[in-house]
């Protein structure tokens, strides 16, 4: 260990980088391209935020996202004026797009917590460059998810009635209901995700404070960095707190989608009342979340030139997790079909027949194509390392996971026990505008995030720079 970390030989670094990247195989094995030091890592990530001006590509995306978000606000305004009658929900399908979208969004969030918490506990170094980004994705996905149940209550301005607080009516929430468990699970999840994200940001906010040129930018970052100075004692407590937060977030993330699945499984509706639901929902959540991380990371790493930090190895590992969780989801579909026969319940048997061959057969067929057939291509390394193809697969999986929730919600409700009470369901234009609008909200928040906050954890990236290791035997 002889060389100072902050080598100023930029030309040498660039040459090293180029020669290393030329071999594709080498880059697959790497979690960071060779040639990086503390300074180059810090510069590369910090300059995305600190560079003055606006990049045209960012602006175009931001404007589109803003327009979609405005559509969301418009749809919600109409909803508030006219009521939930503008949506497609009615008897017998009282749970339509609102619940489908809620489950879809909350599931997407799960990959962020998995990457930042579970992979932290397993000391997976490849999580570092994607963790911050995935956590932000979690936060925004949970924000989008939260919109739907609250809007679905019909009187969202009374949403606080869901919370236990002393009130003049003397009433308390029904704690035996999974819907109230959901309130606790989702609000805890949102809070803990925010805490996790912010704690991870503190040292990087200090970096931004110390590097900002403008006094205003310096002050804003200084304020939120809380005066972080990187003392050894601070780092020690910081590491303990991060590890404990990861340990707490891991059982939390498993519980959140479990509780979401209880919303269905605790009822007696055919197709919902199944013990496979919790594990199958959790796996589906992680599956859809990784698909969303890939959907976002692939264009962003190309646009900002971050291939050196988010390497083919990251992309490939995410594809592998998608394959594994996709297989669990496929197993869930098989168990659903098996149990409908094995239970010998006529209602369950009819449910699966209706699901596969009934009026919504197209949704079930597309679901099996998107979630069952397409991900099997990920067995091949050539597919996992083909970035544009992987992007398309991730998009298909996103659609597939939305269809899965659509199938579960709609095909179980539209034809249950009494044929006289059967009915068809489809989303109205307002349903679609609200749904697509939340995608706009999600994208809008992400555009702000990548512009104003370092999107990769700089301090964690420093720990995997070769110079970071301490070797006291060679010190003198």
């Amino acid at each position, binding site marked *: 260990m002889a060389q100072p970390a*902050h080598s100023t030989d930029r030309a040498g670094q660039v040459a090293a980088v180029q020669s290393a990247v030329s071999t594709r195989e080498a880059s697959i094995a790497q979690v960071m391209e060779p040639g990086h030091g503390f300074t180059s890592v810090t510069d590369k990530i910090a300059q995305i935020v600190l560079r003055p001006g606006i990049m045209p590509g960012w602006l175009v995306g931001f404007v589109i996202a803003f327009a979609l978000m405005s559509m969301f606000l418009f749809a919600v305004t109409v909803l508030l004026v006219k009521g939930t009658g503008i949506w497609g929900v009615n008897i017998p399908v009282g749970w339509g797009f609102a619940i489908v979208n809620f489950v879809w969004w909350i599931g997407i969030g799960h990959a962020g917590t998995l990457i930042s918490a579970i992979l932290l506990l397993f000391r997976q170094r490849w999580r570092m460059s994607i963790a911050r980004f995935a956590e932000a994705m979690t936060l925004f996905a949970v924000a989008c998810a939260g919109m739907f149940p609250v809007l679905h209550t019909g009187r969202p301005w009374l949403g606080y009635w869901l919370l236990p607080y002393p009130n003049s009516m003397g009433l308390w929430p029904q704690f035996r209901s999974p819907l109230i468990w959901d309130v606790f699970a989702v609000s*805890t999840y949102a809070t803990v995700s925010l805490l996790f994200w912010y704690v991870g940001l503190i040292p990087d906010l200090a970096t931004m404070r110390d590097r900002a040129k403008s006094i205003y930018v310096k002050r804003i970052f200084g304020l939120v960095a809380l005066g972080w100075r990187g003392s050894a004692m601070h780092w020690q407590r910081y590491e303990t707190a991060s590890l404990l937060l990861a340990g707490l977030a891991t059982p939390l993330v498993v519980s959140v989608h479990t509780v979401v699945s209880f919303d269905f499984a605790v009822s007696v509706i055919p197709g919902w009342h199944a013990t496979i639901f919790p594990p199958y929902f959790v796996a589906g959540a992680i599956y859809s979340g990784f698909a969303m991380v890939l959907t976002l990371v692939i264009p962003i790493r190309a646009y900002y030139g971050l291939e050196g930090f988010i390497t083919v190895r990251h992309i490939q590992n995410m594809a592998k997790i998608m394959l594994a969780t996709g297989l669990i989801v496929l197993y869930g579909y098989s168990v659903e079909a098996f149990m409908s026969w094995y239970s010998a319940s006529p209602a369950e048997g009819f449910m699966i027949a209706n699901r596969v061959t009934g009026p919504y057969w197209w949704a079930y067929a597309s679901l099996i194509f998107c979630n069952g057939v397409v991900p099997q291509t990920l067995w091949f390394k050539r597919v996992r390392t083909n970035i544009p193809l992987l992007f398309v697969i991730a998009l298909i999986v996103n659609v597939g996971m939305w269809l899965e929730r659509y199938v579960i919600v709609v095909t179980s409700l539209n034809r249950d026990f009494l044929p006289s009470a059967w009915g068809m369901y489809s989303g109205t234009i307002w349903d679609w505008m609200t749904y697509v609008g939340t995608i706009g909200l999600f994208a809008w928040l992400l555009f702000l995030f990548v512009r104003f906050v370092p999107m990769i954890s700089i301090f964690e990236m420093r720990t995997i720079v070769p110079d970071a290791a301490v070797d006291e035997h060679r010190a003198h």
Partner: protein
Amino acid sequence: MAHQEISTVPFGVMAEFPSATALVSAARQTREAGYTKVDAYAPYPIAELADALKLPRNRVPLVVLIGGLLGLIAGYGLQYWASVLEYPLNIGGRPLHSMPAFIVPAYETTILFASLAAVLGMILLNGLPMHYHPVFNVPRFAAASSDGFFLTIETADPKYDVQGTRRFLDELHPLGVSDIAA
């Protein structure tokens, strides 16, 4: 103003080192030389520093444990109180004290309180937010959040001596040594 600055005793001395290894080795030698009010600053967590500086065990885990227990008691207690004592509601003869159902929200509040305790505990035990600290008076210290490794010895240290301490730091082969204005 200027008079006051000159008359106050500096906060301490700061030495910059070229690498994490050099910092850990310097920290160890400083502690072994008998200095106690020593701190090290690095742009990323260095596990070896805790041993080199003989840092005490931190109390974050205890705070988190207390937070978690409080969350469990608060969550379960709230449900028991609301459903059994304050507003008992007989629904189909189900027990008022529905333990299996109450576990779920109590589980969530346990995690919520423990996480809040972890974050607030870490921030407050670290003495943050603290927007003024003398180390920031050294211009070079801005590098501590990107690529600089620093060691400080405070003037409050019983072993501190204006010339002796500076000479000691010089012998550790730092990149530079500077006084920290208070």
